[in-house]
């Protein structure tokens, strides 16, 4: 009797964890709509960093990035948006995008500029990083699930 009750409780716990994971993973993100505006950023590229390294905009904003290279030829490729510009030393180049994909995206140098070139990375934050928050929630469920899947 006790074993049957314990097995039943385990099944309920498993179902609850699965449901929690599904809700965290797929529930629609709250919309924190702000009036879209046009933002302009000047990004200085030097070996092997961008200044500023983090750019934050709201979803829907029109964003102009002005890339200025201070030493060698550098590029700026934005993951997820698949956009790319390059700038010669002393030169500036611009690209404009509509930030219609929310999330956090890496931008990285697209021109071999020196030894640490593959690691020259910055971040474009479009609204809240819901993927990270969902991941934190899933990690909580995962820690509990690890306890649950082990039979006594």
């Amino acid at each position, binding site marked *: 009797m006790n074993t049957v009750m314990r097995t039943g409780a385990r099944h309920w716990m498993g179902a609850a964890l699965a449901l929690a994971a599904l809700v965290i993973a797929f529930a629609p993100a709250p919309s924190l709509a702000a009036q879209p505006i046009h933002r302009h950023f000047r990004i200085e590229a*030097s070996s*092997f*960093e*961008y*200044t500023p*390294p*983090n750019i934050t905009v709201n979803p829907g904003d029109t964003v102009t990035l002005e890339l200025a290279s201070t030493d060698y030829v550098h590029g700026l*490729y934005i*993951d*997820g948006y*698949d956009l790319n510009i390059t700038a010669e030393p002393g030169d500036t180049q611009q690209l404009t995008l509509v930030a219609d994909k929310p*999330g*956090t*995206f*890496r931008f*990285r140098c*697209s021109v*071999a500029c020196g*030894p*640490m*070139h*593959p*690691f*020259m*990375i*910055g*971040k474009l934050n479009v609204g809240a*990083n819901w*993927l*990270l928050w*969902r*991941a*934190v929630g*899933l*990690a*909580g469920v*995962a*820690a*509990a*699930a*690890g*306890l649950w*899947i*082990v039979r*006594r």
Partner: protein
Amino acid sequence: MTRYDLTQLPLVKPLLKSRWPQWIVQVIALAGFIFAIVAGLVGTPVGSHNFSIVFVWIAWWALLMLVAVPLFGRAWCSICPIPLPGEWLQRGAVITPNPKGGIGLGLRWPNRLRNIWLQNASFALVALFSAVVLTQPSITAIVLAAFLFIALAASLIFERRAFCRYLCPVGGFIGLYSQVAPIEVRVKDTSVCAAHTEKTCYVGSADGYGCPWQVFPGGLAKNTYCGTCVECLRTCPHDNIAINLRPLGVDLLVPTGRKLDEAFKAFIMLGSATAYSAVMLGPWGAIKSAAYSVGTAAWAGYALAFLAFVFGALPGMFLLAVIIGKSFSRLEIVSTRKAFTALAYALIPLGLTAWIAFSLSFVFANVSYLWPVVSDPLGWGWNLFGTAAFAWTPYFTQIIPALQVVVLVGGLVWASATARQIAVELKFKTLPALPVIGFCFSATIGLLWLLIG
């Protein structure tokens, strides 16, 4: 535990018992290895256009961390070219056994060093210089050549594969993570081994060499030190060796043979994956510059911070978690050292998934450098296969972050379950495992923040 012996499949046993397939792959790998050294020394200094950097640190690394280690454990060690020249000299043979033997002193490895502390140190040493090793072809060439010569010297001084077993920085972590792989080499019936007085699997025979890894297959309980070279399959006269397909991670729950050096390897690997995620994939230029500027005060600060994090902060926080957990149990029969060592094995799946998540970012952003390098491996302007002008293109950038979440969260489930099982095995039950699971949760959150934050 369910297992399936793959040697029952047609062709598998003949393919493994024959020396030729393995030897051919090893020789191709050796040729590639030597070419990587040559390319690093004479090719372009631009890493992303040089075979040595692109094939070693992108192609080989991707295959190793995303495929070979998780699925096949130490399979790479069975075809690794690094010990080959030394082993050929030591054996006096390139393929089949030579009864006259080869050259070398054949000394026993010192008893005090029969552990993986030297491998822990060698990995940490390479990790301190990783920013230059991973990016400068000439430094990669020097490191690869050093591996080759140290392995050669070890073969000429010590018996069997001393380099692989006790020195190789790569072999150390492959061994640790091979415990989770779904493949194992084991004997079918230990009583057959006990009755077999000749022990040809260990001493060798006309059919094959004695275990190069200094392991007696009849006593194998974990994958850690089995190089999966399958010499024992060749030398066993009783057909008593199996290559088993098995559930993932079963070695983690084997209570025997847990050691502090392996526990620290788990910390080193988890800490290095975290540090690399910050240094290589983070937006902090100052840290990248410090890691790259070897010999400067900034680099010394970076190196100290790295060592303090890997050897001090991480094990220290974990020890605190173990002590807090132990205080819940009111159980004094298990020492803190034993609990610390045993529970650290829960970090093995976490560390492996951390490396997979790190590698996903790094590899798919840079793997397109392969296509031009295939046509122009030295960066000399060749176009052998018409791919020299292929442009750099990061792949799957939209889905990689979600994939990293799945991998890291999966690793946390696994680590949490392992911690609980080890705690139960230590008679602690569930509550004392919670601080360790909390440690694993915090490490996962840190990695998530670094990789997708």
